[in-house]
C-alpha cells in the first residue's frame, strides 16, 4: 500500500480535530459561532461567512440516506461487496459505509448512525432504521 490505510488521527499529518465522540456515539462537526453554518468534517473556518470562530457540534444520529452504491472492487484491503452511502444529517452531508441493507435498498431512506470500537475500520457507519 502506498497510502496510509488507517486513520491518520494522532499523526503529525492530522489536524488532531475529533470527528466523533465515542462516549455519546455521535459525529462531531464544526459549527460557526457567527452564522451557525455546520460543516462535516469539522473545519478551522466557516465556508459561508469565513469566520474562524467555530466550535465542535454534535450531529444528529439519524438521517436520510440520499443515495448509495454497492462496490464490487476491493480497495484498502476491504473485501467486496461493500456498501457506501451519502447520508443527510439535517443539512449536513456525510459519506459513510452502509451496513445491513440486504439485496434491495431504495433511497432516499431513513438510516441511523452506529459507531465502532477504536479498532474498527471504518470507525462509524449507518444502518437502515
Amino acid at each position, binding site marked *: 500500500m502506498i497510502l496510509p490505510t488507517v486513520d491518520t488521527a494522532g499523526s503529525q499529518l492530522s489536524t488532531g480535530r475529533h470527528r466523533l465522540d465515542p462516549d455519546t456515539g455521535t459525529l462531531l462537526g464544526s459549527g460557526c459561532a457567527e452564522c451557525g453554518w455546520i460543516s462535516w468534517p469539522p473545519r478551522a473556518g466557516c465556508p459561508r461567512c469565513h469566520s474562524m470562530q467555530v466550535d465542535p457540534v454534535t450531529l444528529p444520529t439519524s438521517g436520510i440516506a440520499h443515495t448509495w452504491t454497492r462496490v464490487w472492487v476491493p480497495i484498502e484491503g476491504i473485501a467486496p461487496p461493500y456498501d457506501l452511502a451519502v447520508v443527510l444529517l439535517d443539512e449536513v452531508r456525510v459519506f459513510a459505509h452502509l451496513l445491513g441493507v440486504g439485496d434491495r435498498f431504495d433511497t432516499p431512506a431513513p438510516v441511523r448512525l452506529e459507531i465502532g470500537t477504536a479498532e474498527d475500520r*471504518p470507525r462509524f457507519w449507518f444502518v437502515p432504521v
Partner: protein
Amino acid sequence: MIHDVEVAGAGMHPFGRHPDRSLKDLARIAIVNALDDAGLRLADLDAVYSANSLAGLLGGQEQIRGQTVVRDLGLEGVPVVNVENACASGSTAFREAVTAVRAGTSRIALVVGHEKMYVDDRNASLEALRSASDLEVTTGMGLQFTAIYAMRLQARLAEGSLTLDDLARATVKSHAAGARNPDAQHRREFTSEDVLAARKIADPLTLPMCSSVCDGAAAVIVAHRDAIDSAGRPRVRVRASALGTGTSTDDTEVAVAVSRRAYEQSGIGPGDIEVLEVHDAMAPGELLYYEHLGLCERGQAGELLRRGVTDLGGKQPVNPSGGLCSRGHPVGATGVAQLAELTWQLRGQAGARQVEHARTALAQNSGGWADGDSAVCAVHILESAS
C-alpha cells in the same frame, strides 16, 4: 486580450497500455507531434507547463517531473512549471499557459500532460487515485471514484430522471466514438445488452462504463497570434478559460459555476457550442454534464441523448474522441487530450470522427473529490479563427 491566444499545434501519444514506453517516451512523442503540427522547433518554446498526477506515487519521481521529461528531449533553460491538480491537471496546465501568453510573460508555451498508470501492482494505481480526496477524511472508507459516480447516478435512477437504458446508451455511444479514434485505448463497440451484462464495478456501473488504468501523453502549443506564422494554417483561438473549486454552502455543482464563468467570458452560451469534450470518467457521467453545462434543463439529459443531439451527427456532439471512458484517462494527460481533440475538430482534421462545420468547442475537465463534489473543474472554450 484572451482572443490573442491561440492553440498553434496539438499532438498525442496514443492512449493505452505501453509497457515498452517510459513516461519520457510517452511525453516525447506527444511533444514532437505537437511541434510538427505547429511547424515549430524546440528552440521556439519559451515556457513549459507540465501536467502529471501519479508519477510521484507510482514511481517516486516527485518535484521536477516536467524537467525530467523535457530535458530528455533536449529542452533546457526555459521555465518549467509542474502542475498537479488531480484529473484536471492537464487543463489547469493549459490555463496557466493561456494566462502567461495573455500576460505577455510567454509568447510560445508548451503544455504537456503525461501519465503512466500501468505498473506491476495494479492495486497501486487504484490506491494512488484515492489520494485525490482528503485522506484525513476518507482513509479507511474504501473510497473509489467509480463509487462516487455510481452514487450520483443511482440518485438519478431512484428519482426516475434517468434509466438504466440511458446509462447503457451513453456507454454504447462512448465506445462507438472510441472505435473511430486511432489514439483511443478502447476501440471495441458494445451493445446495450453487453454493457448491462458486464462485470459489476459499483452499482449501477459495469466495467465498460468505467475508464480504466491507462498510459499516454498529449501536448498542445499555446501561442500569441503575433508570435507564429499562421499563413495557410487553420487557426484556433482561446475564447474562455475558467477554473474553480467546489462549494459546500449551496447546491450549485462546480461544473455549473465554472461553465457559467466561461460563458460570461466568451459572450456566448451553451446553445452556441458545436462540439464538446466532457469529463466522463464513467461514460454515463456525461449525462450529468449535459445538465451542468447547460445543454439541457435539469432532468432532461436522457431525452437529449435519446434524441441524438449529442451523437457524432447531432447538433451538439459530445465526446467525439470517445471521452475518458473510451479514449482513455491517463490522469495528467486527459485535460490536454481534450484540448488537442477540439483543436483537430475545429480545424476539420479529426478523420472518421470529424464533427461537421464545428466552429465553437468546449472542454470540461474535473478532478478530485471534496465534500461530495469535484474538488476542481476547468472549462475552456475554443473557436475557429480561420
